[in-house]
């Protein structure tokens, strides 16, 4: 695993608050995951009550049976994980986290902006923003991203039978 071997440069010198704690904290990640899974399992099983099942006769199994079983198994596995957690990974620094959040936010934005802005503008923006997070020089990045978006749009619209959104201004 390459994880942990190459952290982001800004944090390289500093200690990592989440991983270099006392011995107790080293299993936190798995426990948190376990409790999240447990919560999901409980919700998943109880959600079957909201299924709108109309029963015909007395069938031994319906649309609730498997989800209930699967949810219980998932919950039990989560309990095992909570009981026997393995060591936590080295989590990134605050910088790395904020970058991650920003990239995810940009991706969500892309989904929202794709249809109103059209493919070329939206994907050029996405490419530039992501490229900047990978420390790309804006002067090279911006024209490359635009050319790339135009080329992709051309390929999709002309060679593939796929229609990309043109945006409200009716461009590509």
């Amino acid at each position, binding site marked *: 695993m390459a994880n942990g071997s190459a*952290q982001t440069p800004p944090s390289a010198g500093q200690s990592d608050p989440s991983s270099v704690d006392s011995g107790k904290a080293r299993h936190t990640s798995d426990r948190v995951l376990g409790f999240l899974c447990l919560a999901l399992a409980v919700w998943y099983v109880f959600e079957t009550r909201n299924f709108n099942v109309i029963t015909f006769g007395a069938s*031994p199994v319906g649309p609730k*049976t*498997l989800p209930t079983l699967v949810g219980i198994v*998932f919950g039990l596995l989560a309990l095992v994980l909570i009981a026997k957690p393995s060591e936590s990974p080295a989590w990134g620094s605050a910088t790395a986290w904020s970058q991650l959040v920003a990239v*995810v936010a940009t991706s969500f934005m892309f989904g929202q902006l794709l249809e109103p802005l059209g493919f070329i503008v939206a994907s050029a923006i996405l*490419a530039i923003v992501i*490229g900047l997070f990978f420390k790309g020089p804006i002067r090279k990045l911006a024209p490359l991203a635009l050319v*790339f978006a135009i080329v992709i749009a051309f390929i999709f619209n002309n060679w593939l039978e796929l229609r990309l959104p043109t945006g409200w201004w009716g461009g590509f």
Partner: protein
Amino acid sequence: MTALTPIFAADFNLWDGFVAALTLENLLLAVIGCLLGTLIGVLPGIGPITGVAILFPITLGLGLGDASTLILLASVYYGTQYGGSTTSILLNVPGEASSVVTTLDGYQMARQGRAGQALAISAIGSFIAGIGAVIGLMLFGPPLAEITIQFQSPEKFMVVILAFATVSSLAGKSLIKGLLAVVFGVMLATVGTDLQTGVVRYTFGELKLQEGLDFVIIAIGLFAVSEVLTLLEDKVMGEDTVFVKADRIWVSFKEFMFSLGAIIRGSFIGFFIGLLPGTGASVAGFMSYGLERRFSDRDGTFGKGDIRGVAAPESANNAAAGGSLVPLFTLGIPGSGTTAVLLGILISMGVRPGSGNVFEDSPELIWTLIASMFIGNAILLLLNFPLVNVFVQILKIPTWFLMPVILVISYIGVYSVNNSALDITIMTIFGVIGYFARKMDVPLAPILLGLILGDDLEQNFRRSLVADDGNYFTFFDGPLNIGLAIGVVVILFLPQILDKLRGGKIKEEFADSGAEV
């Protein structure tokens, strides 16, 4: 030779497969697939599964037939196997998990100015192993697939459980996390409208979710998007990547004969490891290298640039890729994330291995695909000799441009499936889930397999119970079911037992080889 009968006597046989695969269109698709696959393979971090998953929605846009789509995607799959070894040799950076072990002797050879020989033997070994594996697939596939004729719903249910057990037991470091992953996948599969009753489940009132979650969208999110997020943290390569240049890619006849034994041994080991469901090409590479070293390293030359140390694992990982198609085509049990995606694609084409005999139900598709594997291997051999130095140039593309490109292509591919912005949101969510899963050693392939086979699991579960009045022992009724149940237990606990016996070594090898890819 009764085993050969289905190959030549059926209505549609290997010969017809070749005729179909050799049309100009299919040949062109195979070349494109091999090229793209090699390029994807050369790029560290971007694995075969990402490549196949991203390209699948785009191929839908080409309006190809099912066989042509499969030819293209399968070519990408072999291409990545070839490309992955190139960077192992020239850069000491394995392009794929399956060629990690090639770095040991391959990079040493490159440093000694023998990069050309290393690349050549890797290509030749891969070719021989690839062809051998396809022959093995033809011999073992059809007779094994016959078993499925005896499968009723309970057996089909147990086969799916077996698939889940194998993939979660061998895919990661922790059995519990593997099992959590596969069950999570099944939970994802229950989202949408229940086919038998029309009951809507787990949709949060979202109309578009009633059709269920599309495995392609989940696959791209889990693998491709999370890869970008992981690299954001790691930043493995930059513009200053330096690599050894190979001047002339060739081996002398003498060197070839010297390596031939290693190639043949590697091919056999690889193929049989590939047959075991759940073990992928990366495990095969490690095993064959270890065995070859024990078998032929008399002067301690392994690890110092021994050509056999390249030949053995490179043959093994290709043979394993072929071997893993046997459980895939016969029982519907994929050994890796990539074959899980291939299974999802087959199911979306209405071909369901494990539920029926694909060699009889869909002979055109299967034999055309098998024929294209012969052709694909030949194309790769021809492409690699003159073009390796060209392929490596792709590494000069800086990460800051490559990552946005991958992300944009992923997003737009996903969007084009349903023209739905919601799909982009779902994919991003699974990208985040995939990122955390990678960090915490939760294997991704089981999630995907759970989603792909979850529906099958439930349908057979319900059919079995309805047929037997809710008697749960129906799943353990009859010799086949008991055999399958024993198989599940063995596969779940065998790695643990071996682990104890060998002091934790095997599990580490499986996990460190990144078997999730």
